[in-house]
């Protein structure tokens, strides 16, 4: 077995940018004795350390696994181009930060796939670790490759490369997987038997046990297990109650993108925005109590020394005790020289008041609101209704309460959008700026941040085509011309950059070949806008003879078998179809805490719902 020559590695580290990315050694890192451990897991986040290390999911799994006396978990990240070049030139395999062992020496690789643009990096990491990319080419001599994360709700594009996906929340299932792995190995199971055994665990999807057939038109004609003993569909796993939050978090030695104590205060969202993948796949809503959050803050600060806290959720204002929480946080921290950020606030004056409760704990900078759509028609289509009076009142409150900069998030390319709807974004921006200037003068800045809508699997909009690059460009041009001489600041994404995410997020198994080919041609770090990998992707599609437009620009038939239909989020396809219908009629839904629309979550997980009224579930 290949080992890392540490002297050689150290020499290499002299010549790379930010070598601190590759050495570990941080406070709270856990380094266990390799020899005395039964199962060794390497958690891999396939982006650079600076981006991957702050990921809370990674920290949660690292904590859970290392709490087990017989398991060790180490970390590895994608090396930046400079180190990759050196590793390849010197034939050094990719290694873990803690013990600097080659990834191939671990029993299990736990690959984090939170977004699609990491797919080529994931292949690159396996290749740098000298692990065969294709699951079909791996056996008992190789680590088991498990993937999880939000992108895995459509696992199909990565099906060729992954032995088993964990669908949904990994907190409980990860230990079940390792336990089964240990039992099966002990019982002498070969690789095939191991995979079959793992497929018996609820929430675990082993793609190699399924067959896909395609019709003439390229759509799926049949998707089925290769044997009746395997489940026909895989339902995501959830934790009925949010488990203990990790507090012994690794305090990075170098600066990272979210260099702060991140605390998940709530999971899921009850608002039902129809474009929102996270809003569907993370149901039901569960939250932590004020007392628990305060304890996490206390322990987290003591163990990391962070000077900044971020209270994370999909919709912070919807935490049922949010006012109490912000007051308690202020009382606790006001003389501790820390700042507290509370992102994802709803558009309501209440949200501004919440921020006020934090007083001098608030970080500097502007206030951010996300209307997503500006015209009442579009707002109804996406189910994010916003009364104009409420909007203007909120904006007024923001400026009156001291903020001078307001950032507004909008999307273009939404279903049924017209130029009038895009114009409405401009008009809203101008009105907001006028309100701000009237209240606070010319120092006020209003920033329109425009995202391109990408239809996502498991959402009511999963059947819609992506807007063409020309359409998106025309809409952007309208905005770009429109903001001239208004004082509004505009930021946006290049339409072409949304294509990759559009292809991959609703892709099928055939895209595996395209991903592999694009990677071979040089695609990696696809999330980094600066390196334009588009030519590699276009060439890969053309060589594999698959039309990318089939994935991006095609309106799906409602009866079509979608590539992710066998992955169940608990929200039924019937519900999604009905919600799509409502969208077309311009019908909105209320917050589902007020009224249940029978999305399917309670049917799927009702039995797991905690009996104790102290455990909050957002469902009525």
């Amino acid at each position: 077995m290949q080992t890392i020559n540490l002297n050689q590695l150290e020499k290499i580290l002299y010549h790379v940018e930010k070598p601190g990315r590759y050495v570990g050694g941080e406070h709270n890192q856990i380094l266990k004795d390799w020899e005395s451990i039964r199962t060794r897991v390497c958690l891999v986040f396939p982006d650079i350390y600076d981006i991957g290390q702050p990921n809370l999911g990674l920290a949660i799994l690292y904590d859970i696994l290392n709490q087990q006396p017989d398991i060790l978990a180490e970390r590895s990240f994608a090396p930046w181009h400079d180190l990759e070049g050196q590793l390849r030139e010197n034939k050094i395999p990719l290694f873990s930060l803690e013990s600097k062992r080659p990834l191939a020496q671990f029993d299990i690789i736990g690959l984090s796939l939170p977004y699609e643009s990491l797919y080529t990096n994931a292949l690159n990491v396996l290749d740098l670790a000298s692990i065969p990319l294709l699951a079909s080419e791996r056996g008992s001599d190789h680590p088991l490759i498990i993937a999880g994360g939000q992108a895995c709700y459509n696992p199909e594009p990565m099906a060729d490369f992954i032995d088993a996906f964990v669908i949904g929340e990994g907190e409980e299932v990860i230990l079940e997987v390792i336990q089964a792995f240990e039992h099966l190995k002990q019982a002498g199971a070969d690789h095939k038997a191991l995979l079959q055994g793992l497929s018996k665990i609820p929430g675990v999807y082993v793609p190699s046990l399924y067959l896909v057939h395609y019709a003439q038109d390229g759509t799926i004609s049949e998707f089925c297990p290769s044997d009746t003993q395997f489940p026909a569909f895989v339902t995501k796993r959830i934790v009925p109650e949010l488990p203990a939050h990790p507090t012994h978090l690794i305090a990075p030695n170098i600066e990272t993108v979210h260099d702060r104590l991140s605390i998940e205060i709530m999971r899921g969202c009850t608002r039902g925005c129809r474009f929102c993948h996270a809003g569907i796949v993370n149901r039901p809503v569960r939250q932590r109590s004020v007392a628990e959050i305060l304890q996490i803050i206390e322990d987290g600060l003591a163990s990391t020394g962070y000077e900044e806290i971020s209270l994370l959720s999909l919709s912070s204002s919807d935490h049922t005790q949010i006012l109490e929480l912000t007051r308690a946080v202020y009382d606790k921290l006001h003389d501790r020289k820390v700042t507290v950020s509370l992102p994802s606030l709803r558009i309501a004056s209440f949200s501004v008041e919440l921020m006020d409760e934090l007083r001098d704990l608030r970080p500097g900078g502007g206030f951010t609101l996300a209307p997503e759509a500006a015209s009442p028609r579009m707002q109804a289509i996406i189910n994010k209704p916003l009364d104009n009076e409420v909007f203007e009142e909120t904006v007024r409150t923001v400026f009156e309460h001291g903020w001078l900069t307001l950032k507004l998030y909008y999307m273009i390319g939404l279903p049924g959008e017209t130029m009038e709807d895009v114009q409405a974004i401009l008009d809203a921006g101008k009105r907001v700026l006028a309100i701000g200037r009237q209240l606070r003068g010319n120092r006020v800045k209003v920033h329109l941040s425009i995202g391109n809508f990408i239809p996502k699997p498991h959402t009511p909009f999963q059947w819609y085509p992506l807007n063409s690059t020309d359409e998106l460009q025309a809409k952007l041009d309208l905005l770009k011309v429109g903001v001239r001489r208004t004082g509004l600041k505009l930021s946006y994404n290049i339409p072409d950059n949304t294509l990759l995410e559009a292809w991959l997020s609703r892709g099928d198994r055939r895209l595996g070949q395209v991903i592999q080919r694009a990677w071979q041609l040089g695609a990696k770090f696809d999330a980094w806008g600066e390196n334009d990998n588009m030519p590699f992707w276009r060439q890969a599609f053309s060589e594999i003879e698959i039309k990318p437009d089939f994935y991006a620009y095609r309106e799906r038939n409602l009866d079509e078998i979608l590539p992710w239909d066998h992955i169940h989020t608990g929200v039924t396809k019937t519900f999604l179809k009905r919600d799509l219908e409502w969208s077309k009629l311009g019908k909105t839904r209320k917050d589902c805490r007020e009224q249940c629309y029978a999305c399917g979550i309670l049917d799927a997980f009702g039995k797991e719902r905690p009996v104790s009224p102290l455990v909050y579930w957002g469902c009525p």
Partner: protein
Amino acid sequence: MNSEPMRIRMTYAKLGNLRFIGHLDLQRLFERALRRTNLPLRYTQGFSPHMRINLASALPLGFIGEAEQMDFWLDQEVPLDEISNRLSKSLPAELILKHVQEIDNQKPSLQSSLLSSEFEIVLPGDLDPQVLLDQISTLLAQDSLPVQRRKKTVDLKHLILEWQLGSQALKPLLKITMKSTPLENGRPDELLALLGIDPADCVITRTKLIFSEE
């Protein structure tokens, strides 16, 4: 709060993986480590208060530091052994606390009193010590040794105060003392470069910081 702060000088070693953490990152790392101690740290006054810490001298990336120094300030008196205990627990494994002492607030800052640094460089074992000795002697016999640093030229010869070539575990060992003032800071890796040796092939340790009062 406005009373005379307690000024602490800590001496520490920076080694292993921590050699690859640069100066700015190290400063942030110390701030976090100090926060973990829960000691009554002194912050600057004003709109955005900063923790008062003061590192003697930036250690180049990849170098081991055996006796680096840093000052920080506390709002109240705390027994030195308690400071020492809490600090040891709060530092990452490869930052090793060697010593803490209380320093008179009137004394000048570490940077302004730093005069020179001593380094020990373990050179690659395949270098012939005699050839190396001749090489260094010839080099240093020149009137000046200009090296390029960003946009300015520095005379390296002027920065070398003392040197001595010995051996350690069959490898040549160069001991060298160089100026380390804010205006004139000697870097031994620049000398290695002039000798045609890749610093990455050496183990470079800063063994001592020498201050004006010593």
